[in-house]
C-alpha cells in the first residue's frame, strides 16, 4: 500500500491534548489523517474498517477524574468499542496509544491481553512513585522486537514523558486482582513488554529514579499485544518527529557546525515511518 493510501484515525475530544501534534507527526510520513471525536467513534464503530491505524493520543480525558482513562474505558465498554478495537487488530489494523492513550489500552484490558484474553485488566498504571506529575526526557530501550521500533534495537534512545499516572504494576496490596495473577508476570515479561526505561550508562532496564520516572515495575515503559498490532507506551514519540524538540538541539547544532557528528535519529519519525512501512 502506498503511504498516501494509508488512513490514520486519530481520536480527539474530551480532553485529549496531543491530537494536533500527532496529526503533524503522521502527515509528515505522507499518510492521510482524520481526526474523529471520541463520542463520534462511540456512535460509529463501522467507520473503523476504513482505517489502517487508530492512534489514541495523550491528554487528560475526562480530566483524569476517577483515575486516568477510567471514564473513557467505561464508555468503550458500554458501547462495545473494546471488542471492536480487538477485532480491528485481529483483522490487521494497528492500534497505537501514547500516554493517556496507553492508559486507556491498559485499563480496557487490550494491553497486554495475554493469551488473547482482553476481558480482564491484568496490569495498571498507578500514580508515580515520585508523588507528582513529572515532565522528563527519559532514556528508553527496546525489550522485544517490534515492527514499529525497527532500527532502534540495542540502543538507548530518549523520549519525552509527561504524566502523573505511569507506574506500571501488576497488583497492589488492596487490589482485587490478588496474588494469583502474578503467575502471568513471566509470560508478560517474555512476550508483551515492548519498551523499558533504561539507565543510559549501563543500557539496562531500571527501576531507579529519575531514569525510571514513575517507579514502573522492572522498568516497564510500554506493552504490546501478542500479534504486536496493539501497542503503546507512556512516552510521547509524536513530539520527537521534529529536531527542535530535542532539549539538546542547540548543543547538537553547535557540534555539527564544528564537524562533530551527533546521533541524529528522530525516534518519533522512525516509529511513524515504520508504521507506514508495515502497510507498504
Amino acid at each position: 500500500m502506498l503511504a498516501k493510501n494509508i488512513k490514520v484515525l486519530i481520536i480527539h475530544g474530551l480532553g485529549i491534548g496531543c491530537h494536533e501534534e500527532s496529526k503533524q507527526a503522521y502527515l509528515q510520513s505522507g499518510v492521510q489523517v482524520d481526526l474523529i471525536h471520541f463520542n463520534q467513534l462511540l456512535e460509529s464503530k463501522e467507520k473503523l474498517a476504513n482505517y489502517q491505524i487508530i492512534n489514541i493520543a495523550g491528554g487528560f480525558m475526562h480530566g483524569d477524574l476517577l483515575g486516568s482513562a477510567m471514564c473513557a474505558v467505561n464508555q468503550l465498554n458500554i458501547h462495545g468499542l473494546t471488542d471492536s478495537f480487538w477485532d480491528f487488530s485481529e483483522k490487521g489494523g494497528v492500534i497505537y496509544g501514547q500516554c493517556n492513550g496507553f492508559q486507556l489500552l491498559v485499563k480496557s484490558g487490550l494491553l497486554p491481553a495475554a493469551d488473547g484474553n482482553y476481558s480482564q485488566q491484568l496490569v495498571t498504571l498507578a500514580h508515580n512513585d515520585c508523588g507528582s506529575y513529572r515532565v522528563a526526557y527519559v532514556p528508553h530501550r527496546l525489550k522485544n522486537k517490534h515492527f514499529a521500533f525497527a532500527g532502534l534495537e540495542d540502543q538507548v534512545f530518549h523520549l519525552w514523558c509527561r504524566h502523573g499516572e505511569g507506574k506500571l504494576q501488576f497488583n497492589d496490596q488492596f487490589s482485587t486482582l490478588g496474588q494469583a495473577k502474578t503467575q502471568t508476570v513471566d509470560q508478560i515479561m517474555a512476550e508483551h513488554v515492548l519498551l523499558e526505561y533504561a539507565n543510559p550508562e549501563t543500557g539496562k532496564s531500571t527501576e531507579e529514579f529519575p531514569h525510571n520516572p514513575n517507579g514502573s515495575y522492572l522498568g516497564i515503559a510500554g506493552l504490546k499485544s501478542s500479534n504486536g498490532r496493539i501497542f503503546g507506551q507512556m512516552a510521547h514519540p509524536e513530539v520527537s518527529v521534529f529536531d527542535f524538540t530535542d532539549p539538546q538541539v542547540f548543543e547538537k547544532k553547535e557540534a555539527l557546525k564544528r564537524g562533530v557528528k551527533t546521533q541524529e535519529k528522530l525516534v518519533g519519525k522512525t516509529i511513524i515511518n515504520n508504521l507506514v512501512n508495515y502497510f507498504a
Partner: protein
Amino acid sequence: MPGISYKITHKSPKIVSYFEVGFSKEANLTKEVNRFLQLSLSTIWKSRTYCFVHEADVNLANLENGKPFLDPALSSCSFNSSLALKISKDLPFDYIIQAGLKPGTSDAEGMTALEQAFSASGSKLIGNEQGFLITSYYIDGQLDEQQRIGLSKFLFNPELFESQIITKAQFHQGQSVILPIVELENLMEVQELPIADFSDQQLLELNSKRKLAATIEELKYFQSVYQNPEFVQLRESLGLSSKATDVELETWFGLRSEHCFHKEFNARIILDVEVDSVFQKAIDQGWLKQVAGQLVLERGMFKTFIKDPAYAVNDRLTARGCNWIASMFSDNSGVVYYDQDFMYCLKVETHNSPSNIEPVQGAKTGLNGNFRDIMGTMQGTFDILMGFFCYCTGNPNYQGWLPKGVKHPYLILKGITRGIREAGNEMQIPTLNGLVFSDPRYIAKCLVYAGAVGWSPVKSVTGYDYRTKEPSPGDQVLIAGQAVGIDGIHGATESSLSASSEISLGHVQADFSFIQVKVKEFILDASRQGLFTAVTDLGAMGLGSASHEIARSTNGLVMDLAKHPVKYQGIQPWQINCSETQDRMLLVSHPKNLVKIQELAKFYEIELSNVGHLENNNLIQLKYQDKLVGLFQINYLFSSEPRKVLQGKWQKLIPANNKTVNEVTDLNKDLAEVLKHPDVASKEWFFRQKDFSVKGGTIIAPLFGKKLNIDSDATLQKPLDTIDRDLGALAFAMACSPKLADLDPYYSVQKSYYDLLGKILAIGGVLPDLTSPSWDAWAVCGNYCQPNSDAEYTMDRDSGLKNCADLVREGIAVAELVQEFNIPIISGKDSMKCSCTYEVDASFDLNQVPYNLRNQIKIKTLANGQRKIEIHDPATYLISGAVKINDYRKCQNPSFKFAGDLVYLLQVAPAEGLAGSAWEEVLNDRVQVSSIGTYAPIMTEDFKALAGKLAECFTQELLASCAYVHAGGLLTSIYKSVAASELGINLKLNSKGRKLSEELFSERPGRFVVSINPENQATFEKIFSKEELIPIGEVTSSEFLVNSEQGSWQLDLTSLDNSYHQTYNFGAK
C-alpha cells in the same frame, strides 16, 4: 451497622448510593505531614467514596466489580458499605479524616462519577441527581486532639471542605455522614429598596450590610439615578417601581467594583512631591501638570501612561508599514500579528485574594479564567498556545510568626503550584515559563499571576475575517458551560478590599476543568466556522459582567435570568446575575446560526442556554421569567462618574551605603547563599510538574542543560500551524523586580522592562525597527499588584499616600520606555489592594517578627484597646512578553558548548549598585538588618545599540551561548552556563578598581555573557566597542575557577548544585 454510611437529611423519596474505592498507600503524603507537622505517623491510606443522590428506582449495585470505579490491579471497591470491612486483609488505622466540598461548590469528580455510573448501569439521568466525592484518609498512628485538628486542616482546607474526624471505635460502632446537599427554599424573591429616600447613613449601612465595597460618592451616584424622574417614569412604564431591586443593586456595585471598573487606574491623582528628575521629565512630557505647588495626573494612570503611548507606537508602526498591533485594550486580551495570516494574543491575570484563602482552587480558577480570556478574544477563534505563572509568597522554609488565620507560605506555595499545574495540564496547555519571588510581606498577601498566549488564523480558509467583534441588535446571547450555583458571590467586590481576618470567604470556588476543556473544544470548532459574532468569558461578576459588557457593543440587552441553568433550586435572580461559578463562556450569534451551534454544543457535551438577545435602546432589561427584575440605562451604568480622586506623597529614599561590609571573602559560601536565595534558586520542582512539551512545539523549555535542571529565562515555541510554513517561533519571557521598588518603583519598572528585553534578546530576539517594515511583533503585558493606594482607606495614611505616588512613578517609567523602544503594553491588569490588616492580641510583640518584616508593619491601637497591624506588599509590577522570532534555528541557549570557547561579558554599562539584588538580601540576612543600597540606571540609547550588535551576532551565528545577567548577577549566570553544560570555566576578572562583589553580583540591567568558537574571535570582536566587550576567560572541560585582583577561588560545583536546588526541593525526588 459498622462503618460509615452516607445520608441525606431532608425528607425525600430519593436514596443514596455510594461506592468506596481504595486503598492507596500515601507514602509521599505521610512523609510530608510528618515533616511539616512534626508527627510520626507510620502510614496514611486513602480511599475515595462516590456518593450519589438519586431516585429510588435506580439500582447501581452491579457496578461494584467493574468500570468506572474498579481498577482491579490497583484497588478494591465496595457498594453501600465501608471498604475497610470488605477487604480480606485488615487495614491498619486509628483515625479516619474525611471530607467533601462545602455545600454548593462544584464537585467535578462527584458529578462525573454520577454520569459515568448512570451510563454504565443503563439508567437515564433526569437532572435532579447529585454526585459527591468524599475523600478519606485512614491514619495509622496515635494523635492528640490538637494534632488531629492540625492534620485535618493540612489535608483539607476548611475554607473549601467540610471535614470530620472519625475514630476507629466510632467507625466500628457505625457512623453516618450527612451529604452536603444545598437545600434552599425554592422561593424567588426580588427585594426592593427605596434607595431614593435613603439618608447618607442608610446608604453606608447598606454598603456594609451587602458588602458593596463602595464609597459614599459612589453610593450617592447610584441613588441619584433613582431620583431622576425620567428614569422613574421609564421604570413605571415597564412595570417596575421607583425602588431599586436587589438585582440592580448587586449588579451595579459588582460591575463598578475596583476589580471590574478600575477606578483607581482611571482616577485623577494629586501629588504632593519634591520634583526630582523623574517627575520633571513627566512634567516636560505633559503627563503631569504643576498646579498650585502640586502635581496633577489629570487623565489618570491608564490613559496617560499606557493607552496614549501605545497609540503613539501604533501610529509610528502604521507610518513605517507592517503595523503588527491588531487590537489593544478593547478585548479580553491584546492581539498582535505574527504575520499577515496569523495573529497571537497575550493576557495575564492575577488571582490574589482567592489564592490566599484557598491556594489550589484560587490559582486554578485564576489560570483557567485567564485561558477563558484567550478563548473570549474577538470571535473565539484563539487556541491557547502556552500558559505561565509568577508566584510571590513568603519563603516556604520560613519559621516564625504568622498573622492569625494566615496560611504558612509552604502551604500557599504548594497549593498554588498544584492549582496552576492542574489547570494547565488538564487543559493540555504547556506551562512554558514561571517566576517565583519571596518576601516576608507576601506572607500576609501572596500574589498569583497566571497568563497565557493564544493563537488564531486571521481568516478562515474561505476568507471569513475572524478579527471583528461586532454583534448586531437581535443577535442571540448564549451561555455555554456550567450551571450556576451560589459559589463565587461577591468575588469582584471582595477582591476590591484589602485582605483582613474579617473578610468573608464566600467567594471560594472549585473549578470544573473538564467542562472548560469541552467548552474550549466546542468554541474553537464553532468559531472557526464563523458561527459567532462575539465571544467573551465569564469571570468576575459572572453573567452580569459578561453580558452587560457585550450589551455596550450594540447598546442594549434583554435577558431572562431564569433561562440560565442552575445547579439547584432556590438561587435568587441577583445571584444568577452575579455568581462567579467557573467554566462558562458567553457567545453571541446571529439567529440563523442557532441550530448549527446547538447541534455542535450537543456533540461536544456542552450545556448551552439562550438567555436573551441584544438591543440598541440604551437599556439592559433583566427578567426573571416574564417579570422585569432589573433595568439599567447603559450610559449611566458604565459612566465613569463619579471619578475617583487619589492623593499621593513622595519623598526620595536615601540609599544606604553598605560598601564596607559587602566585599567577598569566601566565594564558595557567597555564591552558595546567592543560589539558595528564593528569587534565584532552581525552579525545577515547579516546572517538572507542569507539562511543558505538550502541543509539540517547545524548542526552548523552561529547563535547560544536560540534566534539564537549570532555569531558562526566555522560552521558545513553534506554533504547529507554522511547522511546514516558515522558520518563525514565539519567544516568551517575564520580568519583575519587586525588591527594587523599595528604593524607587520607577527603577523597579525600568529594570523589569530592560530585563524582559534582555531575556528575549539573549535567545535571539530583535527589537522593533522603525526604519524597516517587518513582523518584529512584541505582545507585552503589564500587571500591577499595588499595595493600597487610596490613603482614605489605608490604616496608615502615610503609606497610602506613598503607595499612590509610587504608582505614578511606575507609570512614568512605563510610558518613557514604551516611547523609547516602540514596544507598547497592549494588555494588563491592575490589582490595587495588595495590603492587609489584622487585629492582634496583647501578646503580639514586634520582636517576634522577622527583622525584614519588622519595619514594614504599621501598628495602630484602636479605641477598644485592641491593636491592628497593616502590611503592604511591595509594589510588584510584572511584565510579560511574547515575541516573534524569525528563524528559530539561529537561536541560542545559555549553556556553554565546547572547552576552549572564549567567554565575554557584553555590557551597556559596568556593574554598579546592589539595590534589590539577591546578594544585598544575603548581606542583610547576615547582619539581620534591612537596608537598601544604590541603583545605577542605564541609558536607553546604549542598550539599543548593544541590542543591535547582539542581533548581528545572532544573524551571523557567531555565538555558542548567550545568557542575560539578572537575578543573582554575573557569577550566578556563569554558574548556570557551567552547570548546564557540565563543562568548566577559567574566569579572569579585571574589575578595574571596582568592588569584586559588585562585579559578580550586581543585577544592573543590560549585561550578557556569551561564549564563542575561537575561530570567530576576530569577526566577533570587531562588532563591539571596547567598553561594551570584556573578555572574561574561557570554557574548560572541568573546574570552575575564578581569578581576580582580589583573590582566586576554585568553586565546588557539586556543592553549588546542591545549593541551587535545595530551596524548592519538596520531594518529588
